[in-house]
């Protein structure tokens, strides 16, 4: 764990990344591996988990989709405002691919961007399939292109690129692309589909999961998925681990710890 487990940072820049979605840059010495996450405290509001999308030269970047109170408050911060980080926590992505493919849904592109830029700095590039409901929800497309990755776009409504889901597009692309490892992040239904498709052609890979997180450090149990803790054993899991996890794609726990079927 980095010595910077708890640190206070100021917002130095905010950029619109998609509809209701912002990339926020903080002055911070935190060193995060792709796939790891931070617990970010918006003072007076809430403390929530966030993947790192940028990490370079004393700057940490997050890409945040406004969903509720905390994400809204986060995106309403102004330059100079302070937040507190705990972390980085969790197991990140393995960096062993020669020819990686990324499949992102919505703001799931956030951790995959840090993964892509890390691969690029190692001289490895690959393909990124990025999906969203419609054109204005596509997130970080330009950033993947700037890194020299091949970007393939899917929108549910066909407003940009392929009409259909990211997993539909993956299924198509699998036939034409050379790939040895798949990374995916996005809505759990999509992950479930992506993994089914990958496994059908024996393509190994990893997925980054989300669960409700309170402590972030493996003590409270709120992020449980069967016998695994997403904050500690994940958030990144191998496809073959996920196959053994019956709740994956099926059920989540709410703040009170009740098991609820996924929507």
């Amino acid at each position, binding site marked *: 764990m980095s010595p910077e487990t708890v640190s206070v940072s100021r917002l130095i820049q905010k950029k619109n990344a998609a509809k209701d979605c912002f990339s926020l840059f903080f002055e911070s010495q935190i060193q995060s591996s792709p796939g790891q996450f931070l617990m970010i405290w918006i003072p007076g509001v809430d*403390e929530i988990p966030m993947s790192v999308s940028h990490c370079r030269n004393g700057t940490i970047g997050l890409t945040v989709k406004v969903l509720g109170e905390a994400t809204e408050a986060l995106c309403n911060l102004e330059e100079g405002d302070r937040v507190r980080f705990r972390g980085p926590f969790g197991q990140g992505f393995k960096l062993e691919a020669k020819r990686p493919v990324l499949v992102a849904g919505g703001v799931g592109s956030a951790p995959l961007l840090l993964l892509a830029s890390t691969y690029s700095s190692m001289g490895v590039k690959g393909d990124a399939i990025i999906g969203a409901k419609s054109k204005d929800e596509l997130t970080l497309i330009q950033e993947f292109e700037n890194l020299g990755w091949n970007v393939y776009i899917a929108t549910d409504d066909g407003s940009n690129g392929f009409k259909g889901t990211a997993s539909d597009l993956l299924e198509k692309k699998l036939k034409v692309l050379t790939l040895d490892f798949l990374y995916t992040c996005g809505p759990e239904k999509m992950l479930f589909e992506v993994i089914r498709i990958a496994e059908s052609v024996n393509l190994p890979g990893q997925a980054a999961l989300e669960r409700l997180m*309170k402590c*972030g450090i493996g*003590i409270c149990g709120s992020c449980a998925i069967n016998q695994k803790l997403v904050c500690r054993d994940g958030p990144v899991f191998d496809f073959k681990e996920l196959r053994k996890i019956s709740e994956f794609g099926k059920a989540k726990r709410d703040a009170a710890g009740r098991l609820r079927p996924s929507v």
Partner: protein
Amino acid sequence: MPNAKQGEPDIGLDFLDMKLNNPFILASGILGETADLLLSAFKAGAGAVVTKSIGLEPRDGHRNPTIYSTPDGMMNAMGLPNPGIEDFKREMDVLRKTDAVVIGSVFASKPNGFSILAKKMQDYGAAAVELNLSCPHARGYGTEIGSTPASVRRIVKSVAGSVSIPVLAKLTPNTSDICSLGLAAQEAGAKAVVAINTVKAMRIDPLIKRPVLANRYGGLSGSAVKPIGIRCVYELFEVLTIPIIGVGGIATGLDAVEYIMAGATALQIGTAVQTRGVKVFSYLQDELKEFMRKENYGHLSEMRGIVHEP
């Protein structure tokens, strides 16, 4: 110098009506909300596991941040999140089909509430019920109702009269006199006491200008409270006849030995499950056995309470 006895030291425990492989019990609130996690602690070597404290109704708990962790110790103000006793049946039903020894922890604001919850836990197959009389950060519960002997007596009496499984009273260290609380529990029919819950505490972030926990107050656990927990167990051992379960900052086999020598019969492990991982349950067994082997103890009872003067 002592000679090595033959064979392995025996760290098993016949405790109340439970048969424990070893004295290390998962403390309440740590990975205790789901059957799967409780099972994973049991499989990792816990002698028994205590559930998260369960109430009559579902509760989301306090807003985040609920945890603050430093090398000195941990602070939490989870605020007793739990699915409620009805929903928790699902988890207990899973556990019932296994050989895990499960102690059901419950909290309420009134004696009658505790009794209802304890009966449910008994119905669900819990081996014992632990009464949380000591959470320091949930309004109307825990310490607020567990810091006078009269209130402890009323609650324990109500529960002990309602169930046949052993009743354990978990006591607060946030008092000038833990012995009077322990005595009240014993007189009212508790079969054991558990000491200690967390110590009421606060830290402040000077740059954010707020307490580090959303609830402001929280409970301190981990190595910082170990000397307080050992003192409480020692004090309780001087006055009680029922067994004491020691908890607070136990992270190594030697910590366990200190608690046992102070008078603890069994031990609960909370924060160390975070700092050393769930494997702590096998490390603790190894470390305790190694100590006993070197120091020539055959059974836990040979160490229990030995620092007390005759």
